[in-house]
């Protein structure tokens, strides 16, 4: 049995490295599309300023992209290195979308990104534009396949357990792709990426406008970012991730935990704006509630109930009991028993096997689990409410403030000669908001799935590799040190190029260059 601290350290390492990776991913996804839009405008209008925009924002894209690629490698290695039981147990299903991502998307993105930077003189206008769109398509398709894989972890459809190989195997690939959890996640995440990139371009353009630099360049950038960003942030909010929470037991538990919905209410349920959730008492103190809202958002109907946590716990207790039987039968099968009745009995209840595995946290002899151990496992079968409750609310708040910023920005940029300093300042200071929202959203999705890595199938504490504590302490410190250094370097370069602005293109027509000639 692997120790609790090994599992905890592995989780910290995965959380830190993936949250860090996700600092760069949304910007890559969104900025690649913005670059393609800017370059399309250049090709259609023939005006050089749009080419300069593509090249300048492309430089910043490059600085960000380098770290995205760097930290993405870690993710691919880490499943095998730190989560080897997970890799064995679900690789048949989970590995496929990752491999397809490589073949269909990452290859295309990485092969063409070099031509995006160095192909300006070697390609016709149309060819280069095609390259830029292919880079954007590649990074967006990447997101699709990664989220198909991740969606399967949330709602594992299209696969079943095979006792002979002791792992999950694909039964329906189309179910895997059209998994509602994955579809919703994809739209939500990609739109969040578009919002992030728009806020980035909007804020930096606002900075140039406030400084009175490069008016033609910065105003056009600002306008494109404002329009694209408003559309994006509206999609993020309207096509919220929550609509995917109606499928799958663990998704339901996640939704109930986010909302601190302790007991099932008469539909449509009320939305708790703020409050202090208490998991022991299963109650939320000082709650401020808006009637109806949660039911409408969560189920898109007025008569479907949102299942509360106490009902979920009751249901999980039943499934743990059934899971104990499934585990007992599996033990017989693994010892070579091929009795038809045993096989039939196991096949009938194997969907509860994962719940039986939850008991392994408390006893090696799952079949002999005491009532006390079962109760501990029941309690452990839902996520911690408070962190989810709060991170979700921070995410939503960031989303709505961003919406306000983009509305103001669209108004300012669509009225001729209207320059409102406070909106520009707001645009600048709002840059971090989408990043905070993205990180919080990722946390909600992953922490909300606990105690599972694969919902209802494989508990997190069983998924880790059999490493020692020191192995992971060493690797984790290595990641923290190296990643910190990289982030400092990246921010330093990013700031330097942002300050230089389009003059970094050396086209001899931008701020700093013009001044120098004047002297």
């Amino acid at each position, binding site marked *: 049995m692997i120790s609790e601290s090994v599992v905890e350290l592995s989780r910290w390492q995965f959380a830190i490295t993936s949250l860090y990776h996700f600092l760069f991913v949304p910007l890559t996804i969104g900025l690649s599309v913005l670059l393609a839009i800017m370059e399309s405008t250049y090709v259609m209008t023939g005006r050089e300023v749009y080419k300069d925009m593509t090249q300048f924002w492309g430089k910043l894209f*490059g*600085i960000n*992209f*380098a*770290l995205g*690629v*760097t930290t993405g*490698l*870690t993710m*691919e*290695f880490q*499943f*095998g*290195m*730190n989560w*080897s039981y997970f*890799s*064995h*147990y679900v*690789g*048949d299903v*989970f*590995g*496929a979308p*990752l*491999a*397809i991502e*490589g*073949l*269909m998307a*990452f*290859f*295309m993105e*990485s*092969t*063409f*990104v*070099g*031509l995006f*930077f*160095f*192909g300006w003189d*070697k390609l016709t206008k149309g060819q280069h534009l095609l390259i830029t769109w292919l880079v954007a398509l590649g990074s967006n398709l990447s997101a699709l396949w990664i989220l198909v894989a991740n969606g399967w972890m949330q709602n594992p459809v299209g696969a079943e357990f*095979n006792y002979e*190989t*002791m*792992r999950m*195997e*694909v039964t329906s*690939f189309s179910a895997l792709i059209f998994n509602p959890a994955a579809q919703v996640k994809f739209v939500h995440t990609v739109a969040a990426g578009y919002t992030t990139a728009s806020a980035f371009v909007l804020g930096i353009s606002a900075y140039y406008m406030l400084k009175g630099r490069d008016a033609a360049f910065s105003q056009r950038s600002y306008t494109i970012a404002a329009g694209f960003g408003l559309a994006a942030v509206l999609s993020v909010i309207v096509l919220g991730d929550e609509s995917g929470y109606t499928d799958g037991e663990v998704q339901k538990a996640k939704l109930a935990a986010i909302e601190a919905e302790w007991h099932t209410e008469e539909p449509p349920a009320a939305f708790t704006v703020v409050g202090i959730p208490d998991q022991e008492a299963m109650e939320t103190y000082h709650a401020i509630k808006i009637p109806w809202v949660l039911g409408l958002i969560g189920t898109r109907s007025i008569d479907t109930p949102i299942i509360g946590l106490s009902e979920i716990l009751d249901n999980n207790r039943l499934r743990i009991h059934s899971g104990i039987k499934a585990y007992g039968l599996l033990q017989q099968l693994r010892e070579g028993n091929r009795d038809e009745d045993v096989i039939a009995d196991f096949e009938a209840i194997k969907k509860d096997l994962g719940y039986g595995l939850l008991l392994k946290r408390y006893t090696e002899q799952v079949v002999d689990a005491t009532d006390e151990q079962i109760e501990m496992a029941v309690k452990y079968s839902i996520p911690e409410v408070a962190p989810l409750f709060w991170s979700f609310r921070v995410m939503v708040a960031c989303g709505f403030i961003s919406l306000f910023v983009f509305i103001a920005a669209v108004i300012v940029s669509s009225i001729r000669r209207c320059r409102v300093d406070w909106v520009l300042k707001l645009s600048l200071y709002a840059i971090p908001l989408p990043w905070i929202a993205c990180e919080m959203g990722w946390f909600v999705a992953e922490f909300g799935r606990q105690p599972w890595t694969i919902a209802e199938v494989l508990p997190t504490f069983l998924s880790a*590799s*059999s*490493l020692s504590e020191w*192995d992971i302490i*060493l690797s984790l410190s*290595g990641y923290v040190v190296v990643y910190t250094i990289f982030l400092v*370097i990246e921010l330093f*370069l990013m700031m*330097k*190029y942002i300050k230089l602005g389009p003059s970094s293109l050396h086209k001899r027509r931008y701020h700093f260059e013009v001044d120098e000639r004047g002297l």
Partner: protein
Amino acid sequence: MIFDYETLRIIWWVFLGLLLIGFSVMGGFDLGVGILLPFLGKTDTERRVIINSIGATWEGNQVWFVMAGGALFAAWPTAYAVSFSSFYFALLLALFALFLRPLGFDYRSKLTNKKWRDNWDRALFVGGFVPALIFGIAFGNLLKGIPFHLENDMRIVYFGDLRGLLNGFSLLVGLVSLSMFIMHGAVYLQMKTVGDINERAKKMVWIFSLSTMVLFAIAGYWITVLDGYHIVSEILPNGPSNPLAKFVKREPGLWLDNYGHLPGLMAVPVVAFVSALFTVIFSKFNRPGIAFVFSALVVTFVILTAGCSMFPFLIPSNMSANSSLTVWDASSSQTTLHLMFWVTIVFLPLIAFYTSWVFRVLRGKVTVELIHKNNHTLY
């Protein structure tokens, strides 16, 4: 389904080999160029020539490596799980070294400060040297077998440590890989450059082709006395992937078994050897294009030699031989292999097509004048 399970498993063994060869041929010269950078480039401009010879393409080339890992995960999940968790610190080192490449290429020339650039040059050297060595060491350890055991619920228990990986034979294979990638990178540089760098690269081709031949020959001799593995129980090529259902023996010289059954296989190491010879000859006579084809063949056939010796073993265990992973018992399900077969058949040719188009667009020599002319846009 048009293929039975046995055929699909063999196809996926071939695909995995193809991706590894793809990475070694495409990413291999990038690693070699990174290693040669501080030695062949005496001035900043010369170094920029070297970096820009691969500047626009290394990113795509590296995906072959990512892809080999992804294919291992999808088609051989248990092998992915065992190898990545067992080589924990070795891979961590390779990973940290690989980190330096995207940053080195993209960040180095964004500032003119000399210290900044020198440090990134060192980083690019490390980013080539360490992975090139570690991939070889890892292969050496695969040939020796690694100390892992599979429990009844398929949990992997590993008994080795980093020092155990650094044994004589594996270090030798590490040197084969290092020398081979440097040779490959040098040939590439000879092809893409003119003048001084071209001359220096030529010298390197000579040195590292010869050392590759010598090291490969020693490794070949060592294999004859090294412990190999053999399945002694009945093989079920169409059975479920359960590595615990077989018996394996371990004895010196068993890795030569396949050559005994199919003497024609001896051609594989011979082609590797002869190609290295032709690499030197064509490089000497200033035909680096042809020399490059031969050095790609060296890389291909060295990897094929390892594959032919080990088949059907993927990862033998020297601790509990029966836990060894083979082509017949460590693959994904038939459904997944079949699906991934079609995905690969569609996309791999497409990738080959657009990659060669990109190389065609970027054809031609990289020169000092070109760097001066595009001072602000090139790496």
